[in-house]
């Protein structure tokens, strides 16, 4: 197709880890499934503004991913249904349609199939938001998903493994990715509100020290390239506690 412009430019993409990826990290870090930490399904009906629908779509996507990865089959279908309700409100209800829910229900015992369904669905949602110029919704949903992932990971920090604590501290980097994403969109009151709400979380993560080192690639025995080196992450328990407290505050501000 002939181009609509003739002058070259640089396209900058901003991305954050998907809720499924975060849930996988939590599982590998030895966290135990805690159904009490999940957002209440019934609250979805009360979200009538685009802002609350978008953020809570992200929060429920986080819970959906967490349920899928921990093989909570019925809960997974319930959270997918709740995401459908919010998508209806946002005008993209055709993406999570009855056929998709039925497919998820039929594959509820096959985790890999559910992972594929969830990632494919949220990829389609992100694409639709881009196509329809719904940047605000896209940004708020990404923020909600990120918030819920860190929230779920910090519910039992006192008894958690060192690996989980490190994973939480490392979220300082993904928070930078998220803030870059939010700043890349035209500022709306809802996006500005989200960035303000995340300010205390950013302040808590300031206690995590990341020392940058050069990374290097080398071949492992199995032929895979391994990128070693890179940043060194340091933190203390007080910093993790502050992260846990501030993330709960912002999560509960939206998931009310």
């Amino acid at each position: 197709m002939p181009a609509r412009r003739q002058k070259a430019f640089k396209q900058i993409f901003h991305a954050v880890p998907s809720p499924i990826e975060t849930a996988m990290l939590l599982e590998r870090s030895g966290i135990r499934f805690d159904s009490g930490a999940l957002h209440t399904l019934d609250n979805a009906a009360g979200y009538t503004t685009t802002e609350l629908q978008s953020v809570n779509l992200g929060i429920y996507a986080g819970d959906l991913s967490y349920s899928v990865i921990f093989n909570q089959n019925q809960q997974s279908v319930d959270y997918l249904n709740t995401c459908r309700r919010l998508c209806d409100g946002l005008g993209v209800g055709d993406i999570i349609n009855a056929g998709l829910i039925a497919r998820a229900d039929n594959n509820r015992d096959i985790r890999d199939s559910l992972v594929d369904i969830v990632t494919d669905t949220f990829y389609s949602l992100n694409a639709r938001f881009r196509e329809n110029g719904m940047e605000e919704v896209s940004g708020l949903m990404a923020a909600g998903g990120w918030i819920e992932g860190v929230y779920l990971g910090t519910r039992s920090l006192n008894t958690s493994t060192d690996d989980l604590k490190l994973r939480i501290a490392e979220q300082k980097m993904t928070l930078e990715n998220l803030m870059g994403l939010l700043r890349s969109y035209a500022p709306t009151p809802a996006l500005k509100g989200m960035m303000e709400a995340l300010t205390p979380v950013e302040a808590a993560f300031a206690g995590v020290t990341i020392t940058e080192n050069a990374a290097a690639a080398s071949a492992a025995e199995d032929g895979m390239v391994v990128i070693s080196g890179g940043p060194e992450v340091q933190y203390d328990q007080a910093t993790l506690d502050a992260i846990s407290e501030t993330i709960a505050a912002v999560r509960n501000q939206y998931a009310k």
Partner: protein
Amino acid sequence: MNVTHSAMTAIKTIPLAALALVMIFTVADATAQCRTFTKKRCLPALEDYVQNDNYNTAVLIPGDEAELELTFFGDRAYRLLVCGHPVLGDLTFQVLDSRGNGIYDSSDKEKDHFDFRVANTQQMTIRVQVPPKEAVIQHEGCVSIMVGSKG
């Protein structure tokens, strides 16, 4: 005089509005085509890697660049796939560490993807180039940067 002026304004305004509408629909159509292109031509190449659900796809022309910064988690395997419409030619890409040092360059390899594992969690930048072309009419095409993970 006023009538004539108004009529002239209307004549000028209607085509402009129509052009704007055509542009809006064309851009939306191109984006929708990119989604279809990505799903059919790019996603299968991620194979057994779980895709990141971000939509890093754009319509680019020769000479364009695209850049993505993302956090990669330690002890996890990734496939980075750079997928472009054939009309754009052979795309090249580099992976840079957080200090801007090059880790990987696809220029001398005939592969559209890079499989790797990260020992420590780190932010990296993926930089993609669409080769410039000396042509009167430049053609555009979809470019997608896809990231899948496993392990």
